[in-house]
């Protein structure tokens, strides 16, 4: 079996590998100051609203960003409404689609630049922005471009029309990808948009604005307002907004749901998660180890669908943990712009402190804390080494609450039933993974999980053709696939 014999040599990777840096060299200039993109024009925003955005890998200031107030949000919504009424809402689908194809191509052409900018702004490794985020961003525009002239087939037996003006509020963990997830289906279905990027990651959205202008997208079809919670609230409360699409925390999702109750505004909510990663004894264990790593350390665990609860079948738990630890000790943590880096920086000092606080809570509640990586954790910047918490219980805070960091809580189970019960014992229901080579067990468990997405022998997989979204407190509505069109369409 997989039990390591005591005589096996222990791998000591830290310091053993010469880790020569391979920095990404594509230049991506960072503007000194970011404003807003309203009615097709870049506007500087108000001087008094400026705040500083920091580079997560260094903790140094990156740029100044203006925050939009209610008046600026109003101008953006007015521009969106006028674009909806005058050009976009009534434009033939095939023409709308051509704009989206253009945007997709343009993103592909400038993808390296965008990837570098994203890694600097967000802190995630260039390997991820280059190989995951950016290809998916372009793919989302390509996918929904093709839907624009086929909306008669989007809802069985119904004629449809766009909802109108969509207010879209996106998070900092996948800044440009979330913009693409929101914009592509909204635009394909004929809606116009006011997009609010997260306050800590405004850079790529503003470069996207440049791309939209280059693609000659009619002014006002997409407007971008920067800012934090107050800007978001102004957008949510604006009476001219017909629909709110939000990705972020469950807490803010509740606030938005309350704020819009009775207003007739349509909502989609893509909120938090506490995903289970269920590993059965009959799984392909090496693949499962890779999956667990991808599940929790991808984007430093700052992923709503992260597999942050590892459930291992009891009989293989010790051996599996050994394998997992050995693999974690090969992960390189450090400069996001180094192409070798596996684990980058957390997005902000607040997030860093939040994750550290949770590790401390775990420790206080009796968890054993284990951290590993192939190289020392950088002292500057917002870094947390990959962390395992063992000896935890179903009721522990670190098992129940979303940590949003590279922290994996490890639990065990004996039977498929127990695995299902433990996996479902959460108020969330976004994503989960199941690892087994036995097909009947795989389908039975996958279908029994209260989870909007289930990866069977996989983790953290995304595709524009695949609907993504949660059950229970993880939100409602789907992004991706044909189901991703539904929230942006009204029945005629």
């Amino acid at each position, binding site marked *: 079996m997989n039990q390591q014999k005591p005589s096996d040599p222990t791998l000591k990777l830290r310091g053993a590998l010469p880790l020569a840096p391979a920095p990404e060299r594509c230049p991506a200039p960072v503007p000194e100051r970011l404003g807003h993109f309203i009615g097709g024009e870049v506007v500087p925003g108000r001087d008094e609203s400026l705040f500083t955005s920091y580079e997560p890998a260094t903790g140094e200031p990156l740029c100044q960003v203006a925050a939009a107030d209610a008046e600026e949000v109003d101008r953006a919504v007015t521009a969106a409404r006028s674009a909806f009424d005058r050009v976009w809402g009534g434009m033939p689908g095939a023409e709308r689609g051509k704009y989206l194809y253009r945007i997709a191509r343009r993103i592909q052409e400038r993808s390296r630049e965008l990837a570098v900018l994203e890694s600097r702004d967000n802190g995630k490794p260039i390997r991820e922005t280059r190989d995951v985020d950016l290809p998916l961003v372009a793919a989302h525009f390509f996918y929904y471009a093709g839907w624009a002239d086929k909306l008669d087939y989007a809802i069985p037996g119904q004629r449809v029309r766009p909802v109108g003006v969509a207010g879209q509020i996106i998070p900092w963990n996948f800044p440009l990808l979330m913009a693409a997830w929101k914009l592509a289906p909204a635009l394909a279905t004929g809606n116009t948009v006011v997009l609010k990027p997260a306050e800590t990651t405004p850079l790529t959205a503003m470069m996207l604005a440049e791309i939209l202008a280059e693609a000659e997208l009619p002014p006002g079809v997409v407007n971008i307002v920067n800012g934090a919670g107050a800007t978001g609230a102004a957008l949510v409360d604006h009476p001219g907004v017909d629909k709110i699409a939000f990705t972020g925390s469950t807490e803010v999702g509740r606030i938005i749901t309350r704020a819009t109750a009775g207003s007739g505004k349509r909502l989609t909510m893509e909120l938090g998660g506490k995903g289970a990663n269920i590993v059965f004894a009959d799984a392909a264990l090496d693949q499962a180890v890779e999956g667990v790593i991808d599940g929790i350390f991808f984007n430093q665990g700052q992923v709503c669908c992260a597999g942050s609860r590892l459930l291992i079948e009891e009989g293989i738990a010790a051996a599996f943990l050994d394998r997992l630890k050995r693999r974690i000790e090969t992960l390189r943590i450090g400069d996001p712009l180094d192409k070798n880096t596996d684990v980058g920086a957390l997005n902000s000092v607040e997030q860093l402190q939040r994750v550290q606080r949770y590790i401390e809570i775990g420790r206080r509640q009796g968890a054993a804390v284990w951290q590993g990586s192939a190289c020392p954790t950088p002292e500057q910047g917002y870094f947390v080494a990959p962390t395992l918490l063992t000896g935890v219980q179903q009721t522990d805070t670190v098992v129940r609450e979303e940590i949003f960091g590279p922290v994996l809580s490890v639990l065990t189970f004996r039977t498929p039933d127990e695995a299902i019960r433990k996996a479902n014992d959460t108020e969330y229901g976004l994503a989960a993974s199941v690892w087994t080579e036995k097909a009947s067990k795989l389908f039975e468990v996958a279908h029994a999980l209260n989870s909007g997405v289930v*990866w069977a022998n996989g983790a953290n997989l995304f595709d524009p053709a695949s609907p993504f979204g949660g059950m229970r407190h993880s939100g409602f509505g789907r992004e991706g696939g044909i189901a991703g069109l539904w929230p942006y369409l009204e029945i005629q």
Partner: protein
Amino acid sequence: MSARLTIDKTLKLYVGGKFIRSESGRTMPIEDEDHRAVNVARGSRKDLREAIRIARAATGPWAGRTAYNRGQILYRLAEMLEGRLPSLSPGAEAAIDRVVHHAGWSDKIAAVLSALNPVSTTYVNYARMRPLGVVCAAPDPADGLLGLVEAAAANAVMGNATVLLIDARSATAAAELAEALATSDFPGGVINVLTGELAELLHHAADHDDVDGLYLAHGATASLQGELEAAGARVLRRMLVVPGAARPATPIQLQKLAEVQTVWVSAYEPQGGAPGY
């Protein structure tokens, strides 16, 4: 000739396949079509809680039946209603036909709403419909029996267990449905009927954390919708507002009574066989 003294019937709640009185012991008087006073059990918060608990327990077994079997059970309900047609309120034919309509969806709706998604990797990816779970439904009293069966059948066909919240003024139709249900093959708890003060029952339902969805007929609940949405924010509750029961739920409305669950299944054989053996 002295008229025969008729037997009055108190209209009871129907929960878990049983006719029960309200735990509160309270009733509400209404007038039936012949302007005779009828007492209707007034469902309390505790009755609702119990109904939700029983409905929750019924969800797994109900959703676990084959779609064909659920369709058969729905059709059997239509047979039971038809047999009682002479005693049903006027217009009940439409309600019976509606049950037949939804019975037919049972093993077909998944084919209309599900998708096989061509993802750019070696995975089989499908989006399937998964029941919401427990739904509290408030049909429009103006729709009578038709409104009740529309709400109950649409939910049943999607695999949900339903607690129908009925204003006591529509208790006659509620009793007609409950009595047909009791003689149908519906397992207890899949469709439950609570009568009482509608706004009161709806507020209790909205405050209950174990209700997955609220199904609201616009006519019954328009004035309460804002409050109910706000209360639902705590649990991100699904809300389906339907205009009424004049038309059967469309596929996209039925979709809203289910969750889209996306499943990725690796179609890739690990090289060199699975190393974990």
